[in-house]
Structures are given as C-alpha cells and as structure tokens.
C-alpha cells in the first residue's frame, strides 16, 4: 500500500488513485487516468494526488470521463411514465444539468434577477420593496416570492440518460445556487412515474462543476425563466 511519500511507480499510483476514485463512486476511464498521470509528479504524496484527481474529475463530463456499468447507471426505461413506482438501490452517480425552484413563479424569479441587475441588492444601495407588517406574535410573513423550493433537478448519468428529480424534503446544498455539472450520488430512492423523489438520506453531494456549462446556464437563466413563464402552460 502506498504510504506518505510517493514511490514514483506509475502503475501503483494509477491503481491507487483509480481505487480511491471508484470508492467515491466516480470510477475513471483508463484514458482519463492516463491523461491525469501525465500531468503529475509521481513522487508527490499519494493523498494529495488523490485529492487533486478527485477535484479534476469532478470538473469533467462523466459521460466521457468515467466508466459505466449496468449497476452504476439508470435503467433505460426509468423515465417511463407508465410505471407508477419503482425502487432503485444504486449507488448511481449523476451530474446536474439544470435546477429549478418550482415553488416560486418564474416571473417573480425574473423580477428578482432584474432587481439585482439594477443594483438594488448591492450593499448601500438596497431598495426595500416589501414592508413588514406589525400584527402580533403570529404574524406570518406571507412572502411567497421569498420561498425556496422545492427544487426540480435535471440529472444525467454516465450513460448520458436525462432524468428529472425532485426534493421531497429540503436537501442541504440543493438550490438554484448549485453549480451546473456538480456530481451527486443517489441511492435507495423511489422513482414515481419517471420522476425521482429525493430526500436527504438518498443523496450524497460530491460537488464539482463544469465551468462552460455553468457559465452558459447563468447567462441564459433569465431568458429561460421568461420563456417558461410565458410559453409554458401545462407541466412536465
């Protein structure tokens, strides 16, 4: 077993890092490992190399950088709406392609973005637009536009299959601030009519991000929300 200082043996290092990554549910392809090894100094301490490898792998597209197996991917018919319910054990690693707050109207989210663009949320220039009421200990501040969630996620497995998922209860780290391309590991979850239902116990957030996708998502966000608000009538 590799200890503190690197032994400098490419094969051993590769094997060690691959095993580490596989245990994290992101088993790398051989091609990716080869490319990675060529960028590092073999005698770097192995723990550091493992961390670096994980960090870099989490920034990639798992459909090309990780190995696939039937066990680690969704069944191809998982999105079938005819199936009322199915249980999936996993663990299945996915990457985030899109996230939406479906508890708030799209239009109110567009307005919030525009307010930010106008500088109204910058420190010292805040414009208060909602004034609180003074009604007693039970005054429920009914401020619908502030609600967060539940969130609907668009996920993709290593095979490239797209599946929607929804938070049943609030999951730490899930929200519109998530980075696109972030990786999650799902296990012991239910799929109802093709929609994955998630609770905190089903999800392990690995993190990461794919820069190009995330940037594009942020640029397009207002436009996409507007389209969804104006055009979208039915759901799904």
């Amino acid at each position, binding site marked *: 077993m590799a200890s503190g200082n690197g032994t400098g043996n490419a094969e051993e290092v590769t094997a060690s890092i691959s095993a580490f990554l596989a245990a994290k549910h992101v088993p790398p392809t051989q091609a990716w490992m080869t490319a990675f090894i060529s960028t590092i100094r073999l005698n770097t301490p192995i723990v550091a190399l493992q961390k670096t490898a994980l960090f870099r792998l989490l920034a990639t597209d798992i459909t090309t950088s990780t190995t696939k197996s039937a066990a680690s991917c969704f069944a191809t018919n998982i999105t079938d709406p005819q199936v009322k319910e199915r249980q999936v054990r996993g663990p299945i690693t996915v990457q985030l392609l899109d996230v939406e707050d*479906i508890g708030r109207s*799209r*239009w109110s989210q567009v307005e919030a973005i525009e307010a930010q663009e106008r500088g109204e949320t910058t420190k010292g220039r805040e*414009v208060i637009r909602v004034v609180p009421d003074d009604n007693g200990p039970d005054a429920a501040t009914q401020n619908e536009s502030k609600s967060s969630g539940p969130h609907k996620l668009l996920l993709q497995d290593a095979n490239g299959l797209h599946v*929607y998922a929804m938070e049943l209860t609030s999951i730490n780290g899930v929200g519109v601030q998530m980075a696109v391309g972030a990786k999650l590991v799902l296990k012991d979850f239910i799929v109802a009519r093709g*929609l994955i239902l998630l609770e905190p116990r089903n999800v392990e957030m690995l993190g990461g991000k794919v820069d190009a996708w995330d940037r594009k998502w942020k640029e397009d966000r207002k436009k996409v929300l507007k389209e969804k608000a104006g055009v979208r009538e039915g759901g*799904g």
Partner: protein
Amino acid sequence: MPPRRQQTKVLCVAEKPSIAKAVASHLGGGQVNTHNTGNRYVKNYVFQYNFPAWGECEVTMTSVLGHLVSRDFESRYNNWRACDPSALFEAPIQTYIQDDLKPIAENIKSQARFAKYLYIWTDCDREGENIGDEIRQEALKGNASLSQPNRIFRARFSNIERAHIINAACNPVTLDDAQANAVYSRIELDLRIGACFTRNLTLSVQPLFHQHFGNREQGLISYGSCQFPTLGFVVERYLRVRNFVPETFWTIKVMHEKEDIKVNFRWARNHLFDRMPAVILFERCLAARIARVTKVQTKPTSKWKPLPLTTVELQKCGSRFLYMDSSRVMTVAESLYTKGWISYPRTETDQFDGGMDLRALVQKQTQGGPWAGLAQALMNGGFSAPRNGRNNDKAHPPIHPVNFVEPTQLDAQERSVYEFVVRRFLACCSEDARGSKTDISILYGTETFNASGLVVLARNYLDVYKYDRWTSSQVLPDFQEGEVFEPTEARIQDGKTSPPGYLTEPELIALMDANGIGTDATMAEHILKIKERNYAWVQPRGRRPQGNDGDDEAESGGEAPPAANATRGRRGRGGARGRGGRGGGVEGPGRGATTGVQEFIPTTLGVALVEGYENMGFEISLTKPFLRKEMELKMKAICDGQRTKAEVVHETIEQYRDVYVRTQQRLNVLRDAVRKYCLGPIEAHNG
C-alpha cells in the same frame, strides 16, 4: 408694581397667527389687547405675564407666516441660457424678504426695539428652529442688545392646551442651532441641486415637446431630489403590473368532514408551478389512502393592540380608513393641534414617556363621544400600559388627544381624524385581544397538510379600535394526534398568479419610510409634488389596467407650477400664506372621489423620466432612494452635532456634481425615453 413704562418687555413670536392668538389667550387670561400690524393676518397681542425668571412683564405676542426669508440666486443667473446649469452649484445665493412679508419683518424689528427678551414660539421641529433663527436675525436688526447672553429664548411645547402652554412659558430653553443649520443646508441643497437639474432637464427635454407638438405648451420639467425617488416607486410598481406574466400553479386540496363540520386542509407546499410533480405527488396521496394526524396544538394567541401613533402611521391610516390623502390628513391634524385638541402631529416617537399621566387623558375622554363608555371601562380597571415602539425623536410624544371636544363641534373631516386619534389612544391603553388558536397537521402520503381554527375569546382593544378586524373562524372538530382517517375529499386544482395592484398611498408612504426618503414632516409634501408636477395622478382602485392605449397616447406632461410655490403653506420657500392657501392638492383626474383606496398611476412623462434616468446607469440613479437617503442621514448628523453644515453641503454638492456630469454624457438616453413614451415611435433623425 412698577409703572407700565418701566416694566420689562418681552417679545414673543409664534410661527402662525392662530398659535399666537391661542398662547396669548392662555397666558393673558381675559386681559389681552389686540393691535393690527402691516399685514392683515398678523396681530400683536399685548398682555401682562409673570415669568418666574423675569417677573411681571409686558408681553407682546405676535407671529410670522412660516418662513420669513426667501433665497434665490443673484439675478444675473436668471437667464437659463447665459450659464451652464452646473454653475448654480457655486453661484452666490442672496437672501431677501418678499414684498408681502416685509411688513411682518418690520413688525418684529420695531417690536424688538423695546424688548429686553425675545421669546420664540415656533413649532418645535427642525423647520421651526430654522424659522426661529430667521426671527432672531430680524429682531437683532431692530435691537442689537438682544445679542447679549440670556436674552433670546425658545418655548418647548407639544400641544396648545392651557396647562401645557403655561408650563412651557415658565421653562424657556434656547434655540437649537444644529437643527436650524440642518434646515439651512437642506434649503441650500434643494435650491442648488433642484435648480441645476431642473434647468438641465428642461433644456434637454422641453424642445422635444415643442418640436413635436408645434407649440410651447410644455412648461418646466422640474426635478426634486425627493420627488424623483418617490416617483421612482410609483413607476416601478406600474411597470411591474404592466409587465406581469400570469403563471399557472397547481395545488392539492384536502377536505375532511367530521362531526358534521367540513375541515379544509391547506397543502404545506402551498402550490407548485410545475404540473408533473404536482400530479405525481397527488397520485401518491391517493395511493396512500389514509391520512394520519401528526400534530394537534391548541395555544393561546393574541392580536396586539396598536403602537402609539406616529405621523407616518397617521398618514397611512388616513388613507386606508379615513379616505383622506396624506396632505389632507396632515392639514386637518394641524388644525386640531392648533385648536388644542390633539398633540403636535409631526412626530416619529412611538413610545409614551413613563412620566406622562395617561390616565388623566383617558379620563377626559369619558366626557362624551361614542367612546365615552369604553373610556370609562378603562378607568374602571381595564387600563393597560401602552406598547413601546422603538422610536423616540426626543422632541414630541406620540400623537394623542389632549382634550375632549364634542364631535359635533368639528367639521366632518376634523371629526373623522379626531375620532381616529382618540380611538387609537384608547386602544393603546387597552388590552391586547385574546384568542385561542388550534393548529392541526396531517400526513397524507408524503405530503403534509394543515388546518387551523381561531376562537376570539376577548376582543378588548378591538372594541374601541374599529379599524382592525379579528374574527373567529369556524369551530374545528376534535382531532387527536395519531388519529387516522380517510379524507372525505382530495383534489388537485389549478390557478393563475395575478399582478399586484398599483401603488396605494399607504404603500407608498411605507416604502418611503422604509427607504429613508423624506421625514415625517415632508413625506406628504413629496407625494403632493409628484401630483402637482403631473408626474403621477391617482385613480380609485378597482379600475384594472386597460388593455387599450389609453395610457400611451401622448400627453404633454403639463405645466409645472410657478416657482413661488404659493399653495404649499408654511413650508414654502417664499411667500407662504398661513391662512387660506392651506390644504388643497392639485385637482387631477380622479381626485374628486375621495372615498375608496386611491392608487398611483404615473403619467407618460413620469415613466419616461424614470426609465430615462434608469437607463443612464444605476450609479447615477436619481430615481432610486439611496442618494436622498444619504442626504437625510447627513441632515440628522448635523442635528446631532456630528457634522457641520459646510461639510455636508460641500460633500453633497460634489456627489450631485458627479451625477450631473455623467448625466450630461448620456442625455440621449433620456431623450429616447421621452420620445418613446410621450411622443410616439422613435424617429431616427431627431437629434
């Protein structure tokens, strides 16, 4: 007793004739001699009074009519085209007294000649301190010996009730120069910035109207550093309503009938804006079939009695409950104050000082009026100490009734405001309303639903404060935690979001207050200004936005009123008239109906200005609150002695000069907005 000729003479000067008369009658008893002056509104009241510090004195009590002194640039700056507007940032300002006020100034000068003491009785707020300083300067011209120490004093009073006035007369204080200076800096800044930006705005935009319409109807387009952010709020809401996109949402409703009572349960998620997940969750509820009660909680609840009354609250409530706009409410409140029925209506304080004898005030209200019985109940043991708010301006108490007056002695509007002040005060001294609230939660599938019931047990303050509502809901049947049942009915339902309403006056006041625009004394004026300048008007709520182009047809934007501001009563810059001129707003469209909630609609010019300035970039932002808010904070700092007038004026001028320069570079953006909204489609060849 020394013969009259050798008696010490005291000159007292109030801010308006009505106050002078009231104070004179309280102090002079029945022995007051009245003399005319050069101005037909102002009288000199002469009487004897024994001041603790000065002994038996001959007192002459007179008044001014608001601000005595006017300020303007030297006449060589009058020609707009002769200088760049930004020259006004530095241009020398001259002070002068308008012709119609000269007799009043003369009166003070000549009366001061024989006076040993000058005693100032202007209203106790910033403007009052400033007017006090103007009076002082005029008096010094007539009698330089008044500049010796301990010759000039000031009375502190919050209402015109006899005992209070006598107490004030016996406890003189000195003028607060810090507050006077805060007002001087405001006056200078408003003059320089207002004039510069008004000229700039008018010169840039007015020609477009003249060209387009082929006439010179479009007058001044004026700028004010408070009016623009106020207009900004109105326009922002207007555009929100106009641009609103309704969206469909889905919700799950559960109803269960038990003990012959239909209980409606509300989805904990409220609603979802995506149909698929909503339908899927609904299906899973149905599949679960059985719901389980997870929480049953009954606990006491209360509806708090209101806080002691401030100006902002009075204005908001005036709009909501009394169907009077903020200027009207303040005018009526001032009149009630002058007559001695209520305390000074300009205050930010929402806590009663511990030393005040509130019971005595409640006692006075047992004498009559529809609330007499309720007041009596408070005296009989129902009295409860008022809540304390967080604000104390240290100058005046919360607005409260000072004396009882038979409502039939007041006109309709006075009655309405007086009644509100009384009921509010009595409510403050009552108990909170008490009730019992039951909350029930059920788990149906993975979804939680809630129901609640309220039983009002004791109305308490609600009995006297008829402006609040709190009613029991239907009685809930008994549920036990752990109980299970199959809901009588569960269904999925859709709905559509709808736009907010246009801004109402209470909402506008609340926004101005929350964003630091204007003080309690000035908010109503700013709102009035944007109506007067035809940047916005009011219509009764209920008229939903029209789909046709009624709003978009080109309006000329209207004339701005002449600079003398003659209508605005005592706060006006020049020639303020204390009588008569008070209390009108501009009769805009829709103004006639003062019943029902009024909402603000910007004119095309108003929208064009806000959008034009917005498009110039947010760091300029004349229509956003923060520049003005900063100015207000600096005013306060001068009052608190933390900053000097010179510093604040200089700093603020530099800020606005910076804005001016940037504005200059982007004027085309403003012109495009005006063209878009006021003049029809943008024509490429216009300069």
